[in-house]
């Protein structure tokens, strides 16, 4: 199945367009909106619909391929890889934020246990 393009880019943002594309596709894959086995919309389709340079879309796609999120199927396009890979994708997506938490914790001289103790109830709150 080939999903419709449900991506929005703002060219005037400080985030390069290829990264906006990657972030959104990554989130959609992680969130299950694009399932494993689905094909991403074609480069041409995305470029036309979003009115951006096709090379920018190609770049985002090949970086997603490098990251193991999609694979190129000759003559068919980019297919989302299976769920096992996506667990890793989800873990990687949160890593930059966790690094920031770790750095701030260090500045505030908080011990790892203290940070984890504070984080746990927050996570549980979201689950409920």
């Amino acid at each position, binding site marked *: 199945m080939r999903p419709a393009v449900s991506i929005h880019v703002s*060219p*005037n*943002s*400080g*985030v*390069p*367009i*290829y*990264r906006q594309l990657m972030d959104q596709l990554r989130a959609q894959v992680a969130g299950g909106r694009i399932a494993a086995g689905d094909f991403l919309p074609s480069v*041409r389709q995305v*470029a*036309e619909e979003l*009115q*951006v*340079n*096709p*090379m*920018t879309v190609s*770049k985002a796609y090949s970086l997603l391929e490098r990251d193991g999120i999609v694979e190129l199927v000759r003559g068919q396009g980019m297919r989302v890889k299976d769920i096992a890979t996506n667990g890793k994708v989800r873990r990687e997506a949160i890593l930059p934020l966790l690094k920031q938490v770790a*750095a*701030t914790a260090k*500045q505030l001289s908080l011990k790892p246990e203290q940070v984890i103790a504070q984080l746990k109830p927050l996570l549980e709150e979201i689950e409920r």
Partner: protein
Amino acid sequence: MSDAPIAPRAPLQLRRVHKYYGASVAALDGVDWSVPAGSVVGLLGQNAAGKTTLIKTALGLLRPTRGEAQIFGEDAWDLPAAVKARIGYVPQVITLYPWLRVRQLINYTASFYPHWNDELVRTLALNWAIPREEKVGNLSVGTLQKLAIVLALGHEPELLVLDEPAASLDPGARRDFLRTILDIAADGRRTILFSTHITSDLERVADRVAILRAGKITYDGELDELKDSVKRLHVTAEAPLPPTFSVPGTVRLKIEGNEALVSVRDVSEKIVDDIRRNYAATVGVQDLNLEDIFLELHHA
């Protein structure tokens, strides 16, 4: 910008080009620059930065005072007709024949080229609502601009050069124009260079950007790379920052007590971590859009 070897027969290439008007006014001040095949390049510069002089010199319409300009590996000043047929050019100021009808002007232009894509010209003229039977002299500035672009595309040039193409178009027509640029660029076989001082035009369509400032190319590279590398850091330290506070690759720095705003050219995790550690500070990294970056680099 360096002396690194450049792929042979780049669509457009300048080597150490100087251009003086009169004895002392340097419009171009030692430009080393090449446009890679298949790219869409936005040439960005403030008014009077030398954009038009750069384009005209690159195309052989002006003779460099020193240095050399080449198109597809041939001397731009002395281009063979076969190479000229591979270029499409839309100047900033368009002078066409006001007494001709649009249809006649199209036929007249087509007669100069061995290859002419009638279908393409017909489609574009239709999409852009250019009246074929109207006299050229009666067209509005915007329509004239569109016509000039259509005429520059008819022979399907490999290199398309547009000097401030969107300047006289209203927002709707500008969007149409950018769409067309993307269509033309879609097959990746054509190279497009356009100059502008409007950064938002560039961000959507260009994959490369060159910044011209006071006759010098001060940045030349991928647009994404520029956005990825130039960042503004918001630094908040526990104690007042010393006057010696410095960050590698600083473009602009402002210190106020415990806080600093610093724009850097090549941000990295290491740079940010070093600030955190050395000054016991929190550092926020702010993305900058092209307009911000352009302004930061110009205040440097």
